[in-house]
């Protein structure tokens, strides 16, 4: 029952002309969760999010957001969902305060001034209240956008790459706020390209070429992908890298500082590939946990074969 789910959609399909941009997409987001939405550029994340908040009409499928039908009750959804667009889309020629006031009034909040004051306070925007939005730095713009999107205390936040192009400190701060909102019971669906953000999500859905490839609690993703990883550490790793790159049994190899992570799905084949390096002088080979990044790169590589 959708009482437990903030988002419950199935079969979502969207075509632009001939091109199917989102294909038979399903997603169940439990209330209060932070759900990560990952996928390469152009995979359909933004399009999917727009369908969920009534900005785009699906060509097929449907479902509910906060229990309301995403097609028939889109107006109700709009008043209960906060949507932060990928591209900054508040008014650059209005000040921070004017933007927030405008949003408060569009949502027909009682006593908009009070809401604005609270938001300025909460997001530490008060010192910049009279600055034009265009003149804010990237991090502050995103913070203003989050403040504007959560102005009307939505039960569900859809955040589309909220931290793209923002410095690490501002990103950390932003995520502290997202977790804070989640603790208050707000459900958050957030798309991102950053792995350090992905690991902070309770669940992750990965989409490529419009199709969902995996959808699981974030801790289970590497295991689901089924990759086994070995870590080779030592000096002068370049020849090792070159040799293993095309070795049978090695599905993926990546550098991690002074180490290599060599992954494959077939344990025996992988073992045969790395065996020669186990005795090599100056190298240590030990088992490692497959990371999210390796899992996703592996998924992307696979999806290209399937769909391109």
């Amino acid at each position: 029952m959708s009482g437990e789910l903030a988002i419950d959609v199935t079969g979502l399909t969207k075509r632009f002309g001939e091109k199917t941009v989102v294909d038979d997409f399903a997603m169940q987001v439990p209330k209060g969760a932070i759900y990560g939405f990952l996928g390469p550029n152009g995979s359909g994340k933004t399009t999917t999010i727009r369908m969920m908040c009534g900005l785009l009409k699906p060509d097929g499928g449907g479902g509910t957001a906060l229990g309301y039908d995403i097609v028939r009750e889109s107006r109700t959804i709009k008043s209960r969902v906060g949507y932060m667009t990928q591209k900054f889309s508040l008014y650059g020629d209005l000040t921070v305060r004017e933007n927030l006031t405008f949003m408060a009034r569009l949502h027909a909040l009682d006593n908009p001034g009070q809401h604005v004051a609270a938001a300025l306070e909460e997001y530490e925007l008060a010192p910049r209240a009279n600055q034009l939005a265009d003149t804010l730095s990237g991090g502050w713009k995103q913070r203003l956008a989050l403040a504007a999107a959560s102005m009307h205390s939505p039960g569900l936040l859809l955040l589309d790459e909220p931290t793209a192009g923002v410095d690490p400190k501002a990103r950390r701060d932003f995520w502290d706020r997202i977790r804070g909102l989640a603790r208050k019971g707000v459900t958050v669906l957030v798309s991102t390209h950053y792995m350090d953000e992905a690991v902070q999500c309770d669940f992750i859905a990965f989409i490529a070429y419009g199709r969902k490839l995996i959808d699981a609690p974030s801790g289970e993703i590497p295991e689901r992908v089924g990759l086994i990883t070995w870590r080779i550490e030592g000096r002068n790793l370049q020849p090792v890298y070159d040799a293993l790159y095309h070795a049978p049994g090695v599905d993926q190899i990546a550098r991690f500082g002074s180490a290599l992570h060599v992954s494959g799905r077939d344990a025996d084949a992988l073992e045969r590939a790395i065996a020669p390096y186990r005795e090599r002088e100056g190298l240590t080979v030990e088992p490692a946990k497959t990371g999210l990044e390796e899992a996703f790169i592996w998924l992307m590589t696979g999806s290209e074969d399937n769909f391109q």
Partner: protein
Amino acid sequence: MTGFSRILAMIGKEFIQMLRDRLTFGMMVGIPVMQLLLFGYAINTDPRHLPTLVEMGDSGPASRAILQAMETSNYFDLAGITTSRAQTEAAMQQGDILFVVTIPPDFERDLLRGARPQILLDTDASDPVAAGAGTGAFPTLVQRALEPMLGEMTPPVETVIQRRYNPAGRTALNIVPGLLGVILTMTMAMMTSMALTREAERGTLETLLATPTRPYEVMIGKITPYILVGFIQVVIMLAGARYLFGVPFLGSPLAFLVSVSLFILVNLSLGFLFSTIARTQMQAMQMTFFVFLPSILLSGFMFPFAGMPAWAQMLGQALPTTHFIHAVRAIMLKGARLGDVAPDIWPLAAIFAAIATVAMLRYRRTLD
């Protein structure tokens, strides 16, 4: 109620943006002033020293007194004296000459006999504004020239004025109602279409659409500030017309208010329609010009409407500017009342209903 407060929010936001965009705001106020001055003074001042040819059928003292008076009036510059009809025709055809004065043979004799001889002024009225002042002054001028010789014997001659190429001979007063129509067409349609397209171009439309704001709330909220701007333009131009050029306002203010309000609404909804088609502000501007140019050429602003070929008149009838100019000329210059301009009000209302409906149907509730 919540809808109303959302509309107020849109209006407030739009005003802030408008006032902050100094250049555009300056243009909205500056364009009417500039155009009025351009048309009023540079193009429209009563021009003097216009080339004149005299066909002398008689050269007695009375004829010479008339020529003398014409020269001192400054309206006419004597370009030559001829006796050849063919020569005067050619000169006028080529536009070298704006006036031809014909003094018939036996002019002096008829004059002294009290037989009221005719004196003929041919004017090139294809530019009625240029020829207007001299033409108007001519009869009195002749009268005055002859007074010292004949006393106040009234009137000693009959002045016949023949307007060539544009027999209607529109007066300078016609410019102001026309200008009102053209400027409102230009600024109202352009400003709204650009202001609305800007939301799509900058991505802020996505923010608007993600709130429960309804399409008509966006429309009313975005358009209302420009209604006010339209009225400011009207006031500026009316005041200028009155105090700079003495254009009268003879008709009913109510009829004027109805015509102007309706016309402003038509142009705003046109701008709204354009914004639903254009993807960028540049496109919106180009579409405005697509309507703006025929509005100048076919509305009776540039050329007398009755003088246009039938197909052009049909096109012109479909343009709101045509009806507006027609109505406002009647109101300002001929003292028309609301009932008199009804034949122009209905088409305006119909055009407004049609455009507004299409625009509302086209307005995107979603992003696709």
